């Protein structure tokens, strides 16, 4: 193992910078799922939703960029399409789990397989075996801040989606804990019967939260394809949806901790990229690929976060259950 190359400042800075960028898709999905789960619904379908958002975003971005020639807005059109596609999947999830009261684990896993199948199918039909690519987003340095030594390069020289996502973390926290909207949503997740008899529309609130969460996951998928990798392939999310679900528990349903968890994931992702290129054949880079999953397990092992979960999480609400 080329340790000398690893433990230099340059390396550490570069993986942190890359880690921040790589964290965005997962962080978006985690934020969305936090909102959903705070209202009492567990949406396990994130892996499928991210794929659908990723393909929708990629397809629209390709169309706008190559067909319409509008290179500048193409990525934004793609990101928007990703959100819309995600929201539609969220609508499906909401109908299944909130109105029809299907088991949430079942609905989630089915949505994953649906998302995987649909995107694989649609991608082949739409693009055949031609590997199309899109431009993506260039980094936008923040004037002034980007010049700070070390930190400037790490934090303030990213593409716009990084900054937007960071703002979203703050917005998510604010909305959940400092507004009445958030109070109502959390009430639905803690005690839907109490919320109902207080005059809140539990069904409407849950529909919203599931759709918003799925829209954010779709956006995350679109960021992955349009901004980060500039392409789409089958299974491109490679388990990020599942990691997002784990990180929701890790973050104790708090947006700020979600940021930290996603960063951890991003950094380990960056590390294993680098090490793969540096290392020899014999090196077990798979062990590095395992890192996010092992890390999540360790974190879960160390502390039982059961008591922090929204009380009514995963339980379908039946009016006036006798």
């Amino acid at each position, binding site marked *: 193992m080329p340790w000398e190359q690893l433990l230099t400042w340059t390396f550490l800075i570069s993986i942190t910078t890359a880690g921040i960028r790589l964290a965005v898709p997962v962080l978006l999905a985690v934020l969305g799922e936090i909102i959903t789960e705070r209202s009492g619904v567990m949406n396990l379908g994130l892996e499928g939703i991210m794929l659908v958002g990723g393909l929708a975003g990629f397809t629209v971005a390709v169309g706008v960029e190559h067909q319409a020639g509008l290179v500048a807005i193409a990525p934004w059109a793609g990101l928007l399409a990703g959100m819309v596609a995600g929201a539609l999947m969220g609508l499906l999830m909401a109908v299944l789990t909130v109105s029809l009261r299907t088991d949430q684990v079942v609905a989630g896993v089915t949505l994953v397989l649906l998302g995987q199948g649909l995107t694989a199918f649609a991608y082949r039909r739409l693009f055949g075996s031609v590997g199309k690519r899109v431009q993506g987003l260039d980094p936008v340095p923040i004037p002034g801040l980007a010049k700070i030594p070390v930190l400037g390069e790490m934090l303030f020289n990213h593409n716009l989606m990084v900054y937007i996502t960071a703002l979203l973390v703050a917005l998510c926290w604010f909305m959940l804990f*400092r*507004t*009445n*909207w958030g*109070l*109502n949503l*959390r*009430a639905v997740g*803690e*005690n839907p*019967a*109490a*919320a*109902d*008899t*207080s*005059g*809140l*529309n539990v069904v409407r609130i849950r529909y919203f939260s599931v759709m918003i969460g799925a829209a954010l996951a779709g956006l995350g998928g679109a960021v992955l394809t349009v901004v980060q990798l500039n392409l789409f392939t089958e299974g491109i999310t490679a388990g990020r949806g599942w990691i997002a679900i784990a990180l929701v528990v890790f973050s104790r349903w708090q947006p700020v901790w979600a940021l930290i968890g996603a960063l951890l994931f991003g950094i380990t992702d960056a590390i294993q990229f680098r090490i793969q290129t540096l290392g020899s054949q014999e090196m077990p880079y798979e062990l590095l690929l395992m890192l996010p999953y092992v890390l999540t397990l360790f974190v879960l092992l160390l502390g039982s976060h059961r008591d922090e979960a929204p*009380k009514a999480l995963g339980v379908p609400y039946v*009016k*006036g259950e*006798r």
Partner: protein
Amino acid sequence: MVTTDRTTTQIRVVEMAGIDKQFPGVFANQNIHFDLREGEIHALLGENGAGKTTLMNILCGLYEPDAGEIRLFGAPVRFRSPREAIAAGIGMVHQHFMLVERFTVAENIILGQTDQAILREPPAQLHRRLQALADHYGLKINPAVPVWQLSVGEQQRVEILKALYRQAKVLILDEPTAVLTPQEADELIVTLQTLAAQGTAIVFISHKLREVMSVCHRVTVLRDGQTVGTVVTQDCTEQQLAEMMVGREVNLRRQLSSAHSKPHSAQPALELQHLHVLSDRHLSAIQNLNLAVYPGEIVGIAGVDGNGQRELEEAIIGLRPSQQGNIRVQGKLAHIPSDRYSMGLLTDFSVAENLVLKDVNQPPFSWRGFLRPPAILSHAIALVQQFLIRTPSVKTRVGKLSGGNAQKVIFARELTRAHQVILAAQPSRGLDIGATEFVHAQLLACRDAGAGILLISTELDEILSLSDRIAVLYEGQILEIVPTAQADVNQLGLRMAGKQTGKQREMP
């Protein structure tokens, strides 16, 4: 005894006429007529399952009636959701509180009532407003406290304040004194009288005759989903009300069980020594509890719900670990659980399967690793006949049986397994008078046959009529143990509220 001012106005606040409500297999409400006047406290009286809660759930917008009309101040209304009912001035305090435990009192009160979707009112301002409102009605609360830290009585006050915050003109209380000590109940009644004097119309759902007689102006009695009649309390007796409730002549005099002072054998059937048990929140639920139950006696543990009964029950059956102390059972323990659907019966399984639930891997029900359905079925058929369990067949799902018959399944299973000790917790909860009589008869018969019975019940009447000795449980400790013959109801009530006189007196 508190007196009530019985002047009422003639203004009809609520009129419900011809209300029908059906659930699968059950006519919860049939052609119900009910009216409520301004400033009155009106009782809705009936046994469990008579339809009282259903009717009020319709009034507060949780359900819609299948037929019938509701008028509010003379104008017809139709509530499609609790929101609409709340907006119209109907406030309900449910039997099981509808509070978000993790939120503060203030957050619970304003839930669903905020005009602003985004910005929240600054907490200091909000708390001041709510404190003023509470003071106006004489309710003692602290808006900043998280609800899970409050006592039951305090939580109930929050519920009432919630309704008042929403400018309720009608306040519905569902069995409000079930979870209160006698002293807290008195405080509640004073509050209700204050509200009534200010013009609020109050519906008081109850099955407790004495309370209804002393507090309410009028009573509407429901039985089996139908209105039996509405009377002015001044003009009737407890006896009459009881008969309206049950539909037949009822003997209200409590039968004190005979053979009180049976000589005890030396060895206790059940012995609890220096028992310490923690609650789910890792607070002390049972503290240094000492109690002995001898064969051939019933020891009743009286107390208001929430003083450690559940934790004690779970510790004795081994479901909950005890931090310290000993639990000695001489022989086998039969358990009549306080919550039959979360401790005793599988609703998805058949009657026959539930009857063998605890012994399914023993012969004759199993042999060499396989079940023996014929043995299971014949066992079930015999028990159904012996205990007169009303069920279409032994293969029927237990979830389809009535509460009384489900309880009979538990009795059949527990009492036919060899046992020397019985732990009966809230054995007649949710049962009508007929089923309750069955339960009591069974327990007395078992006692006479030599079993040692520990009875835990929040119904003081039940404790008084069954027990040979009574222990009062308050905040996890036994305050006193007396033989029933020497028990004074008022004294017991005080003990249940925690009033101690010196050290615990233990009877041999």
